[in-house]
C-alpha cells in the first residue's frame, strides 16, 4: 500500500505484470474511488462549464460524456477530466484525486447565478472494470464509448460509464460509498482480477493516455501535449487565446511516445539528448521493452526519429513512435 493524495492505495495485488495482462486479455478491476466527483447544476450550469472546459460541451446529449481539460488563463492544464451530461441542466465532472481541491476551487470562484458547483467525492466510489471480457463478465450489454446509463449490478445501484484509462473495452462503475464494498465483492465474484495502481500506470502508458502531474500540468499546454483534439478553439474558455496562438505558430516542443531500442527502462525526469525530458517511463508488459513519453523539440518529434536517453549517466537509444505505443493486433 502507498499513500496517494491522502488515500492508501494498493500498488499491486498479485503483481503488476499479471494484473496488466489480465486487463489486456480478460478483465481487471481498479478501485479508483480516490477520483473526485464534482456536480454542476442549474439553468446556467452549461454556461459555467462551457466557459471553463476546453472541449465543446454542446456536443453532448444527456447520457453522453467527453474527455476535456480544465485550463488556466495561460492555457496550462489545471486538470484533465471526463464531463458527463447527466441531465438537461446538470453535469458530473470526474477529476483527478490530486486536483480535486484545485478544480473545485477554480469552478467555485467562477460560479455564476444559476449554476451550483458541489464536491460530491466523499459520497461516491468508483470502480473501473476494464478488459476485452469486462462487459460480458458484468453481464452488461455493449454500448458505445463515452455513454452512460443507470443500472443495477448484483443488487447495487450504479452509474455505468463506458469510459476508462487502459485502452481496453470496459466501464467505470460509480456507486454510493456505502455500497462500494458490496460492489467490489460482486465484481470479483464474477471472475474479474483485482488490479492496483502499478498496472493502471503501465496500461495507460502503453496506450499513451497522459497522466496529469507527469505528462501534462499547469505549465504545459494542450497543443504541445497533443490534446488539441480535446480543445474547441472556436469557443471562449480560459487560456484559449494562448492555445490559438500556439496552434497558429506551431508548438516549439511536443509530447511524443518512444520505445527503447536498447535494454533500459526510461523513468520520469531522465534527460533526452537535444533538450527533451522523459515525463513517463516504464516497462511495457505487452511489448517487453522500455517505453515512455516525453517532451522533445519539434525537430525531434517525428515518428522514427532516433533519441538518446540519459539513463542514470548511461546513454541509451530510443525511437519516436506513433501513439499509441501498444495496439491490439487485428
Amino acid at each position, binding site marked *: 500500500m502507498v499513500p496517494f493524495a491522502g488515500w492508501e492505495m494498493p*500498488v*499491486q495485488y498479485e*503483481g*503488476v*505484470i499479471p494484473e496488466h495482462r489480465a486487463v489486456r486479455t480478460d478483465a481487471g478491476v481498479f478501485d479508483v474511488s480516490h477520483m473526485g466527483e464534482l456536480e454542476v447544476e442549474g439553468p446556467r450550469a452549461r454556461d459555467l462549464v462551457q466557459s471553463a472546459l476546453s472541449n465543446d460541451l454542446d456536443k453532448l446529449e444527456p447520457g453522453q460524456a467527453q474527455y476535456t481539460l480544465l485550463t488556466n488563463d495561460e492555457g496550462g492544464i489545471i486538470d484533465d477530466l471526463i464531463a458527463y451530461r447527466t441531465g438537461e441542466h446538470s453535469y458530473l465532472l470526474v477529476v483527478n484525486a490530486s486536483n480535486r481541491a484545485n478544480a473545485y476551487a477554480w469552478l467555485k470562484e467562477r460560479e455564476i447565478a444559476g449554476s451550483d458547483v458541489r464536491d460530491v467525492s466523499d459520497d461516491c466510489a468508483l470502480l473501473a472494470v476494464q478488459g476485452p471480457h469486462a462487459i460480458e463478465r458484468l453481464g452488461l450489454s455493449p454500448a458505445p464509448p463515452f455513454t452512460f446509463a443507470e443500472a443495477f449490478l448484483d443488487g447495487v445501484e450504479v452509474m455505468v460509464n463506458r469510459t476508462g484509462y487502459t485502452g481496453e473495452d470496459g466501464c467505470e462503475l460509480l456507486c454510493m460509498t456505502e455500497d462500494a464494498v458490496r460492489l467490489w465483492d460482486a465484481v470479483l465474484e464474477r471472475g474479474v482480477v483485482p488490479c492496483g495502481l*502499478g498496472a493502471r500506470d*503501465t496500461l495507460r502508458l502503453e496506450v499513451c493516455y497522459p497522466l496529469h502531474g507527469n505528462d501534462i500540468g499547469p505549465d504545459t499546454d494542450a497543443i504541445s501535449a497533443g490534446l488539441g483534439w480535446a480543445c474547441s478553439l472556436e469557443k471562449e474558455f480560459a487560456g484559449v487565446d494562448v492555445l490559438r496562438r500556439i496552434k497558429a505558430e506551431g508548438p516549439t516542443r511536443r509530447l511524443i511516445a518512444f520505445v527503447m531500442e536498447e*535494454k*533500459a*527502462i526510461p*523513468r520520469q525526469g531522465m534527460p533526452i539528448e537535444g533538450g527533451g525530458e522523459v515525463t513517463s517511463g*516504464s*516497462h511495457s*508488459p505487452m511489448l*517487453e521493452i*522500455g517505453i515512455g513519453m516525453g517532451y522533445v523539440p519539434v525537430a525531434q518529434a517525428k515518428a522514427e526519429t532516433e533519441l538518446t536517453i540519459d539513463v*542514470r549517466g*548511461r546513454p541509451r537509444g530510443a525511437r519516436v513512435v506513433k501513439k499509441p505505443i501498444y495496439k491490439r493486433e487485428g
Partner: protein
Amino acid sequence: MAAAESYPDELRYHEEHDWARVDGDEAVLGITWFAADALGELVHFEAPEVGSAVTKDQSYGEVESVKAVSDVIAPLSGEVLEVNGQVVDAPETVNEDPYGAGWLLRIRVADSAEVDVLLDAGAYRQLLADQ
C-alpha cells in the same frame, strides 16, 4: 512463478540482501529471495562488463521492476568472470529461482578474508527478523 521464501545454508549473505556461493577462489553472486520479493517481478538487469572489477559494499549494477530500481551491492571484491546472460534476457528468472538459475555474476575473489565477515544463513535470517 515466484519462488517460495528460502535462505540456503550453504550460502554467505551481505546485509544489503545479496548472497555469495564461494568455491575456491571463485564466487557466484546474486540477490536474496527477500530482495527479489520486495522489488517484484524483475524486468531489467543492468550488468557490469566481464573483466571489470567489483568492490565489496559498492554497487556493481542495477535491478529493476516495473515500479522500482535498486542497486546491487557486491558482497565480495573481485573481477567479473561471467554475467548470467539468462538473467539479462529474462530477468524474471531471479524471482523464479534466486539461488539457482537466477544468479547474476561469477567473480574471481580478490581477498578471501572478505568471505569471513559475511553473514551465514542463520545470521541473515535473524537480520530479516529484526527488521
